């Protein structure tokens, strides 16, 4: 959460730099410095900091042990819901909205299964894979 807030702050800082600050500062910079060079440099620095923070966030998330019992259970819930949606769609063949919901739900069930199965042993204990 802290990282998210920090990233949000960085984005906000960059937005402020790229809009409100550029015009007034251009009148005061020395002539040999290209207009807006200061804000651009600062924006570049902030972008680099944001990339670094994102990399760190990825590392932290990779290090975080998954809550496998919960993830396994939610995966089952997702796939149960997908089956229910498709059962309804089967009863209403030719309904495009239901057909689309079934397809989307099925895709999400498959993706959930892939994601969880790569990190957790769900059969039966729900523990992280080594």
């Amino acid at each position: 959460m802290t990282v998210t807030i920090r990233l949000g702050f960085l984005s906000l800082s960059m937005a402020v730099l790229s809009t409100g600050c550029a015009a007034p500062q251009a009148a005061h910079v020395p002539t040999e410095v290209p207009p807006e060079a200061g804000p651009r440099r600062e924006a570049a620095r902030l972008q680099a900091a944001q990339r670094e923070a994102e990399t760190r966030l990825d590392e932290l998330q990779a290090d975080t042990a998954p809550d496998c019992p919960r993830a396994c259970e939610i995966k089952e819930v997702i796939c149960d819901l997908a089956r229910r949606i498709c059962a309804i769609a089967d009863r209403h063949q030719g309904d495009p909205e239901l057909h689309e919901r079934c397809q989307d739900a099925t895709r999400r069930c498959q993706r959930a299964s892939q994601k969880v199965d790569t990190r957790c042993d769900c059969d039966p204990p729900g523990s992280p894979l080594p």
Partner: protein
Amino acid sequence: MICRRTTSHQPLLSRAIMAAAMAAVLAGCAGCAGRADSGRWVRRALETNRLADRALAERDTATAVGLLRDLARDQAPAAVSARDGRLVRQDACFRLALLQLQQDRPDQALGWAEYGLELGRGQDLFTANLLVARGHANQALGHDKPAARDYHQALLINEDLMNQALGRPD
């Protein structure tokens, strides 16, 4: 907290996960608010859930429904955060909806699920479970399309919750 009590294979999170989530909500209420009335409200919410569990264990559904109905309608004091108050009341609404489904009263179940969802929504299992309960009620009433919509919305929330459980926000 109750889950998986109406039919053999409902797409709802287990009692253990729901109970842990509700305990976390109530612990948060008790720890942060620091006012006498919020403490009383939290204790009463815990006690009401416990008494409802006991009534259900004794097959006294009427008592359980009465207790949960009072909790669902009981607005939290100002010292309790709006979110915590919503979650406690939504859990009661969810339990009521499931009890009504068990008793083949889908119209009543629909009413409680709607009431719970009108309290607010979030990307949390309380909202997801209310959507599933409303989906069941809609399906039992023959409203297949709204049911599919509810299930789909619940699925999307559960997808977020799964990513959180895996430690990934994507």
